[in-house]
């Protein structure tokens, strides 16, 4: 093997490493998020049912959120008393925005309320900016968890967020947890 070929293979290998690294970097870059300590008073999403409530904000066209809904289904297999609401953001200026696989995926999940948030009213109240943002409130309206249910962008599998919710529902510890969210943005950057 001549030196020229060795160099070529070496550079190819470097680019492969660089490409693989970039892939992981993109995969692990979270969306923007902020976490309220308590539920906003003006929201219509929380009812006083005496159960904790999990809100999950979804962009209906975000392909990464398919993994989030799959993780939600796994989480709900042993949920106990828990109100679950999936809120689809729906800008009024786009027709048929809700139609698609993700909507169909959501409405097939049993014992879950699927709601539509036209013009991001509720999303703004809860200060959520990224699809796949889940917020868990206890019975009193205190925020227990805020973050995503997937470990990386569109990647199925256990995540710290879903593990915490599962643990909290079983143990009701005093701890709260915030995790990263991976998904499409609800709003354009101002």
């Amino acid at each position, binding site marked *: 093997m001549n030196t020229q070929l060795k160099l070529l293979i070496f550079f190819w290998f470097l680019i492969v490493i660089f490409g*693989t690294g970039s892939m992981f970097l*993109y995969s692990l870059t979270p969306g923007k998020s902020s976490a309220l300590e308590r539920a906003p008073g003006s929201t219509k999403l929380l009812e006083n049912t005496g159960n904790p409530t999990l809100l999950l904000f979804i962009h209906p066209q975000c392909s990464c959120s398919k993994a989030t809904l799959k993780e939600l289904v796994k989480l709900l297999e042993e949920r106990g008393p828990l109100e679950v609401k999936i809120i689809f953001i729906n800008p009024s200026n786009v027709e048929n925005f809700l139609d698609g696989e993700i909507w169909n995926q959501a409405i097939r999940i049993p014992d879950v309320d699927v709601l539509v948030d036209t013009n991001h009213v509720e999303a703004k109240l809860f200060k959520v900016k990224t699809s796949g943002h889940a917020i868990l409130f206890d019975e009193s309206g205190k925020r227990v968890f805020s973050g995503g249910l997937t470990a990386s962008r569109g990647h199925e599998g256990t995540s710290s967020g879903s593990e915490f919710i599962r643990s909290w529902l079983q143990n009701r510890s005093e701890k709260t947890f915030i995790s990263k969210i991976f998904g499409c943005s609800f709003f354009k950057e101002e």
Partner: protein
Amino acid sequence: MKRRPSYSGREWEIFEGHMDEIRQETDRLFVWLFCFQWFTVILISVILTPYTWVGSESSVHPHVYLSVFFGGFLSIFPIIKLLRDPGKSENGYIVCVSQIIYTILLIHITGGRVESHFHVFGSLTFLGCYRNKKIIYLGTAIIVADHILRGLFLPMSIYGVPESSLWRALEHTGWILFLDIFLLMAIRNQTHLILHIAQRENALERSVANTEKMVKERTIELVETRKTILDQQQKLLKAERLSSLGQMAAEIAHEINNPMGIIATSSYLMRAKIEDGEASKEELLDSLSDIDATVGRVSNIIRGLKNVSRNAADESVRAVPMKEIINDVVSISADKFKAHSIAFTYVDKSHEVYCRRVQISQVLLNLVTNAYDAVKDFQGDRWIRIEIKQDPKWTHILVSNSGPAIPEDTKVRIFQPFFTTKEIGKGTGLGLSLSQSIVENHGGVIELKDNVAFTQFDVRLPKFAA
């Protein structure tokens, strides 16, 4: 303790040849696989994640770019290398790196689907086609390094949990090693098998070489033997010719003596008439004409004798008019036919035959002499006939006579050397045997015909020279 077999240099050479073929074949397989994988990852990304969204605005999803460009990069470089240098030993390692990274890419763009993890098992199995343990080691090392490094520093990207877990890395590695055991065993067995085949091929090669050497030696021996036989045959032919000539000498001397008598008488009469002054011009011219004709007859006899008795060892095959051969024979025999009232007929249509002229003349003289011996004292019709016939493949020289039928026990031995029915001192018993050899050397056949009412020999010569 079982000893490992040792292999010779040639066996390793054959083994390397087979391994090179296997590498080239596997390279071709991976060219198609890389094309297929590239197309597949693009298709998957377009179907699963065509767009990324910011509110209500969409743009092409980074996964699509990733599949097109990074997938392309992973495919095109190995494809060019494999097509340019098929069978090179480094190809397997390049393919290995690319293939394992393809697994990571596929898992990534399918959103970590459990099913896409099977790609790594398929990839390792495909890499096993190179029958090179080092490639399996490299592939496994990349997978293990990926699991350990990402497990330690980016656990979320590979296991989906924020805490690093060495045990999980070991579990994944264990499954890979589980597959490796079977792959390495298969590679070892196949390598031994190919080595075994190389041993067999080497043995076969040696055997073929020995056989070829033996065949060459035997061929040389055969050529020498054939040369000896031909020399002996020539000597026999010469002996037979001399013998025949010896026998003919007396008859020919008689044949020549008669014309010489005619010449002597004519010249005596001419001289007497001239001395007596009684010789007219017409009478002298008549006597001279007789002398000329008689000298012509003698010349014919001598020419025929010369043609038939020439040394024919170096004579080449050429097209000879049959008429010339017949004339050689007839010129020698015409007078004795006449003396015994034997009718000689010759049926010819100006045929030519490819042969050695002197040899075939000798065969014909032999047959005609035998025919003459058979009919000269026969109490019925006495005739000898030579007839030339042709079919698409052969020229037949048919020599027939009206003599008594040949007994059955003579027929079966007639071509045997030293077999003769003539009186002692009259025949060597080699005439027909040598005639047979001469005809066979011409690629022809001589046989005694059974299906005719008289005695007939058929000399069959190929119509065209070989």
